[in-house]
């Protein structure tokens, strides 16, 4: 069982124009920096990107926005960068805004083999338009569908050749669910460890979901809001 590929370029080699890609991360926390750079280098176009946010100018998905590779974003909160706003207002970019919990659960359900589910989020609002409403125990719920992707790309802290993944602190966010929702799942890790080095009790994503894994490099880990206390 060896899912190791050489690098990001190899890992994303078959991502073609028009692909639907999920990318883990919350803001800039836990984003797959190596694969984003490789996608920019490969210059694949017309991508649909499913990611909670859209990066900032010059970093994260902001890189692929700047190079005009993204056709559509599916996110809960966007617009932390000027280029995003410009493209959206010019009609150059499509955006599907999805409540964060609904987005997370749609992705999670894809990985669980459940095609649809009911959530109260958004009932009575404009996002309910066209969605089936059901009442359970007197409360209104919207039907939402599982969300799959051609490729899921996540970044973990540690991983092994079998694709088992371990995350650090708040980098787990959307990544653990996305890893299970891709037809092909690519994991880049800060540290690739030998098979058996990860404690089976500690693994966050089982290797069965992961198809390709590589050790990334040059992680910048930019911080969006550097808040400190003065002691």
């Amino acid at each position: 069982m060896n899912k190791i590929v050489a690098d990001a370029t190899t890992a994303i080699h078959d991502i073609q124009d028009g692909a639907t890609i999920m990318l883990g991360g919350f803001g800039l926390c836990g984003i797959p920096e190596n694969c984003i750079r490789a996608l920019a280098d490969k210059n694949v176009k017309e991508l649909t990107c499913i990611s909670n946010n859209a990066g900032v100018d010059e970093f994260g998905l902001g890189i692929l926005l700047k190079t005009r590779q993204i056709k559509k974003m599916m996110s809960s909160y966007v617009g932390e960068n000027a280029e995003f706003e410009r493209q959206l207002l010019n009609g150059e970019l499509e955006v599907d805004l999805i409540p964060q919990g609904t987005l997370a659960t749609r992705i999670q359900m894809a990985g669980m083999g459940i095609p649809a589910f009911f959530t109260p989020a958004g009932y009575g609002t404009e996002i309910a338009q066209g969605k089936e409403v059901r009442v359970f125990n007197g409360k209104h719920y919207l039907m939402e569908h599982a969300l799959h992707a051609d490729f899921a790309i996540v970044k973990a802290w540690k991983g092994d050749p079998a694709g088992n993944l371990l995350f650090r602190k708040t980098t787990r966010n959307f990544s653990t669910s996305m890893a299970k929702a891709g037809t092909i799942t690519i994991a880049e890790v800060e540290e690739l460890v030998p098979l058996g080095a990860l404690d089976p009790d500690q693994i966050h994503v089982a290797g069965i979901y992961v198809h390709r894994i590589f050790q990334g490099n040059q992680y910048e880990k930019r911080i969006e809001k550097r808040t400190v206390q003065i002691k």
Partner: protein
Amino acid sequence: MALDKYGIAKRIAQELQDGMYINLGIGIPTLVANYIPEGISVMLQSENGMLGIGPYPTEEEIDADLINAGKETVTVIPGSVFFDSAESFGMIRAGKVDLTVLGAMEVSEKGDIANWKIPNKMVKGMGGAMDLVASAKNIIVAMMHTNPKGESKLLPECTLPLTGVSCVKKVITELAVLEIEPGVGFILKETAPGVTVEEVQTKTLGKLIVSPDVKEMKI
């Protein structure tokens, strides 16, 4: 005199009870964490996947892998837990979070809330707000009573696109503490020190009932 944003946060902090799990939104709600009353222990939940949010880090403690839902660097405290977004919203939907405090652009006398979109302006998205308001057991809105134009934000009906319907239980502004009773309206429970009932009435466009035991806030 009307409260400032710190005063609003201090008043909201009085709503906290020992043992509560609490989600604080961005802005004034985040400030509430600075005024948790003595002798009370609460756990703050952040929807990006953390329970037990500690204070901001020192320069030496900063960790890019450790942020809150406002994307600010934070720290852990004894008892902190990390999880993923799907589980985080599971907690929220299942009603495990006892109190949600968030900001708003408008609140209606029915408890509807609008806080994510101004049509024809840049729309950044709802983030987790729709999930939170649809499921939280107890929602307190922290906001200024009027918008920058001086218009009331407490209305008969929201005019902006809704975030959720019939969900807000209490509104705390620089002028007043108001409860919402569906079918009745805003119930004025407390006024800020030096603020008259008349001023609150003038600045509340939605139906306002003055509680018979209305009193002055203690800050």
